[in-house]
């Protein structure tokens, strides 16, 4: 009894990073799986989310209602419950066999995140002023061309910051898959900790790893956001992307000088035009 106390006390006070270094491969496997699941799920969710957003804004009442229901239901279920429900409940009831928890996890994440992302995309699209669509139509663009050329590029700018938040959320939420036995980062850390009793070191290590992962995502989105920022910060963006901008500027300058050197514009005066 007293010996055990001593052992425990020692473990609290001593700090041994060696356990991390010895098991880097296991943690690295976890990181890879975490990233893999996050990236695939987020990709599918983004793809689905665009359709959710479009369906939600559909002029057909039935389609819009269906999309609204889809969003409401999926957003209302706790993610952990949803994962368990998919993996154990749905799979068994319908006789589906998910080869691994990974597939079930990706399935659950993709569905639930598509609902959240759909709402983000919808708000982005709706943030584009109505006049933009009208101006595009007025110069002869059809609905698809208008969406792709005029609406989407502006909607993306609005949607990037909240989408970035969702992506960070996805990386963190992927830890929930430990519950269905997916050997992502957290699960591997748990296994390791249970084997070595080095809880503090190991959990500290994965805290740091999650921090690195989410910070990477955060700065990636920041980069995109700046890259796509309209004009206010054009000067700073230009400095950062100097080669591209310089080429483009040069081309425009050449064009400008060439046109300026042309003979003044000929007026097509129709003498009888004004009575």
């Amino acid at each position, binding site marked *: 009894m007293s010996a055990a106390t001593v052992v425990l006390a020692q473990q609290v006070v001593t700090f041994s990073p060696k356990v991390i270094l010895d098991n880097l491969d296991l943690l690295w496997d976890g990181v890879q799986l975490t990233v893999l699941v996050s990236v695939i799920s987020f990709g599918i969710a983004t793809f689905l989310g665009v359709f959710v957003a479009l369906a939600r804004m559909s002029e057909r009442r039935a389609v819009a209602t269906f999309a609204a229901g889809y969003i409401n239901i999926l957003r209302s279920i706790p993610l952990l419950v949803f994962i368990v429900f998919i993996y154990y409940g749905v799979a068994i009831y319908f006789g589906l066999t998910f080869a691994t928890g990974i597939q079930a996890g990706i399935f659950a994440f993709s569905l639930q995140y598509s609902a959240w992302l759909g709402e983000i995309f919808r708000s982005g699209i709706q943030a584009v002023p109505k006049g933009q669509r009208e101006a595009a*139509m007025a110069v002869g663009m059809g609905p698809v061309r208008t969406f792709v050329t005029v609406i989407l590029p502006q909607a993306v700018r609005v949607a990037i910051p909240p989408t970035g938040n969702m992506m960070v959320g996805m990386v963190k939420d992927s830890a929930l898959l430990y519950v269905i036995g997916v050997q992502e980062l957290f699960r591997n850390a748990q296994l390791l900790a249970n084997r070595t009793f080095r809880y503090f070191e190991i959990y500290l290590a994965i805290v740091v790893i999650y921090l690195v992962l989410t910070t990477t995502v955060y700065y990636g989105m920041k980069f995109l956001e700046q890259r796509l920022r309209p004009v206010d910060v054009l000067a700073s963006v230009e400095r950062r992307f100097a080669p591209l901008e310089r080429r483009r500027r040069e081309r425009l300058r050449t064009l400008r000088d060439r046109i300026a050197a042309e003979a003044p*514009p000929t007026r097509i005066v*129709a003498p009888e035009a004004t009575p």
Partner: protein
Amino acid sequence: MGPGEQAETVIDLRGIQKWFDDNHVLRGVDLTVTRGEHVCVFGPSGSGKSTLLRTINLLEEPQRGSVRILGVEYGPGVDGEVGRGRAPAKQLRQHVGMVFQQFNLFPHMTVLDNVAIALRRVRGVDRAEAEERAARQLRRVGLLQKVSAYPSQLSGGQQQRVAIARALVLDPDVMLFDEPTSALDPELVGEVLGAMRDLAETGMTMVVVTHEMGFAREIGDQNVFMDEGVIVEQGGREIYTDSREARTRDFIRAVL
């Protein structure tokens, strides 16, 4: 065009009726615009003048009435000939340019791209040629130096001139202006009216919804006073000094 020769009809609206839900905003409007003519439409807010202008390029679809542009029917038709032989709105917009009150430039594109984009994406002109033609139009409105600027770097007056160039580059048969100076600071109104005056002098067919009565009096060949969804009075320049209708007189007195 010699004397006695009939000018070509560019716009022919007949029996235009438009409801927004229960609100009957256009109650049977007829308007004919011939080539080279400058039409000014004025009237109190809510009179339907902007809606009328927007039906000309079908940004608003009238529920009833005939919208003929260069002889082609785009509207639902007057009673009895409903929906027959309607051409698509996209075709109509090849002939009709529009300038908006709020400019509506594309903020994520340079000035040059704003003007060139429709040539490239709608007309299928290759990039080099489209940019060249866009630059020429920008020169016409005095903004060639701004090709690489973004709309938010321009004043309202400059933005509106870019919008004019964006419409002109498509070589329209008629230009629509929806209160083009109403969103501008007073000191910027002049440059936009100047560009429009120049355009009028080239013989461009124009329909202008405006509160600038001085400008209307200057360029308006046909002047239309609207109120409550109908044309109350229309005529030449005498409408501003010698109108027949009391409502027209009251309105002109109030805005001058």
